[in-house]
């Protein structure tokens, strides 16, 4: 090698060149640096043998407060059973509503395909992003197990964790709902169990807390005829047309505080905290459509044109429809 070439390709100049390239990668648009994803899987493969056992060793499952006189295991079991039953009730109610629509379509002479079948895979969590500012999980389930981007991820079967945003053969990357880049989720505040209240839209995220704006209007209790205000302790469940149908009814979290919105006085702002600490989850359930079962008519459109559904929900939010008057 000639002397000038050796002078250029020395370790010091190579490091300087790499430094300049890293700065350029940082200022380049995301589409120009997409190829870097190819290096992520080998890097994970190098680190997983040490990071995964450590994560599983120290990881917990929930960080919820424990009532006095009850041990943690019993409390968790009771709470989980309770939540599962309520979620099933919610889903059955939605299914019944869907079936009523199907019946009305049948009456109009339209052929209907068999019902929506959701496949659920339980997958261990491999770890979180090394940089904790990104609230992203990596789970051991990939294309080989049938996971696709946009599959919904839940914990303990009923708590919404997030959505799969990228999948390789064996590992899926999950964007949690507390990640700053996650979209503005729409939920419904449950005034009591089985009594859906106002819709609420996610406005911002503060650490683990999700700040929602609640729609206008007052909800009247059909039993007592007294208005039911949104208050701390109420559950918030997913009711978002932009999310896949199988995310419907999953628990977003519990209201920890409710205040008047300083910008729009008729609306309230609630702080919702997920009941699961996503950073210490050991396993999650990935929910997605079973490919073997075709979608019924009417539900197909939900997947093909979800932006339209999102617009419809946003419209409901802005006009307060479905939020005024008595509880159904």
């Amino acid at each position, binding site marked *: 090698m000639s002397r000038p070439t050796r002078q250029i390709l020395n370790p010091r100049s190579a490091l300087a060149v790499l430094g300049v390239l890293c700065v350029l990668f940082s200022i380049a648009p995301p589409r120009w640096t997409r190829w870097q*994803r190819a290096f992520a899987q080998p890097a994970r493969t190098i680190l997983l043998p040490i990071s995964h056992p450590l*994560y599983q060793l120290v990881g917990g499952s929930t960080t919820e407060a424990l009532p006095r006189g009850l041990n943690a295991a019993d409390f968790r079991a009771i709470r989980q059973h309770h939540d599962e039953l309520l979620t099933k009730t919610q889903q059955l109610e939605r299914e019944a509503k869907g079936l009523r629509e199907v019946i009305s379509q049948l009456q109009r002479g339209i052929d209907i395909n068999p019902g929506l079948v959701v496949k659920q895979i339980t997958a261990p969590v491999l770890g979180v992003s090394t940089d904790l500012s*990104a609230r992203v999980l990596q789970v051991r389930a990939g294309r080989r197990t049938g996971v696709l*981007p946009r599959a919904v991820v839940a914990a303990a079967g009923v708590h919404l964790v997030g959505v799969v945003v*990228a999948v390789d053969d064996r590992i899926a990357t999950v964007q949690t709902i507390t990640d700053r880049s996650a979209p503005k989720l729409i939920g419904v505040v449950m005034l009591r169990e089985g009594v859906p209240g106002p819709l609420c839209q996610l406005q911002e995220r503060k650490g683990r807390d999700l700040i929602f704006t609640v729609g206008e209007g007052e909800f009247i209790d059909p039993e007592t005829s007294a208005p039911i205000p949104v208050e701390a302790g109420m559950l918030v469940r997913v009711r978002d047309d932009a999310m896949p149908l199988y995310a419907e009814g999953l628990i977003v979290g519990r209201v920890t505080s409710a205040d008047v919105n300083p910008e729009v006085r008729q609306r309230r702002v609630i702080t919702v905290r997920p009941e699961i600490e996503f950073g210490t989850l050991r396993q999650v359930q990935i929910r997605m459509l079973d490919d073997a079962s075709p979608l019924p008519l009417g539900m197909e459109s939900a997947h093909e044109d979800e932006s339209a559904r999102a617009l419809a929900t946003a419209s409901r939010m802005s006009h307060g429809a479905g939020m005024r008057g008595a509880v159904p």
Partner: protein
Amino acid sequence: MLFLAWITLGLDAGLRSALSIGDARIAPLFSLPLVVFIGLSAPALPTLWSSFFIGALIDLTSPRAGLLGFAGGEGGGGLGMSGTEQILLGPHALGYVAAAYFVLTLRGVMMRKSIVALVIMSVLGAMVESIVSTALLTVKSLHAGSFEFSAGASLVQGAGSAVYTAFSAAVLGVVLIPGHAWFRFSDPLARRYGGR
């Protein structure tokens, strides 16, 4: 040293979440004290290269989800589209190089085989790393379709994590400093003054 780097990166990926404090997710760094230890003992160029590789591995194992997450991926909408995971090589790689350079600059006035020096330099180095990586991530997040990023929150997290890193540096110092001779670092000061 490669084995140690693997162990400390594994500790970062596996333990940081469990050791994090509060909503700001303040957590200690384990790989940075190792970089500081190398910086206090080894010649400049190997220090900078090892810090670059450690930082690059952190970048490659820190996926970020893009802004279009729930709405259907980079290509539009619908199931089966490619996801919006973003891997960004650079912020931590350059942050670690900056931290290593900072240590190299100051090591002349430090007692190199002291745990106190390792702890102090780790805290300061982690702050430097946080500032550099936050700056680069902020620039990246300005692009449309990129991830959402709060520089303020990241700096608060970085400063808190830097202080918390004192704990991990002290633990690593107890292991690394007595075993200093095993690593057979070529002594930069000995070379400068014409032999040992």
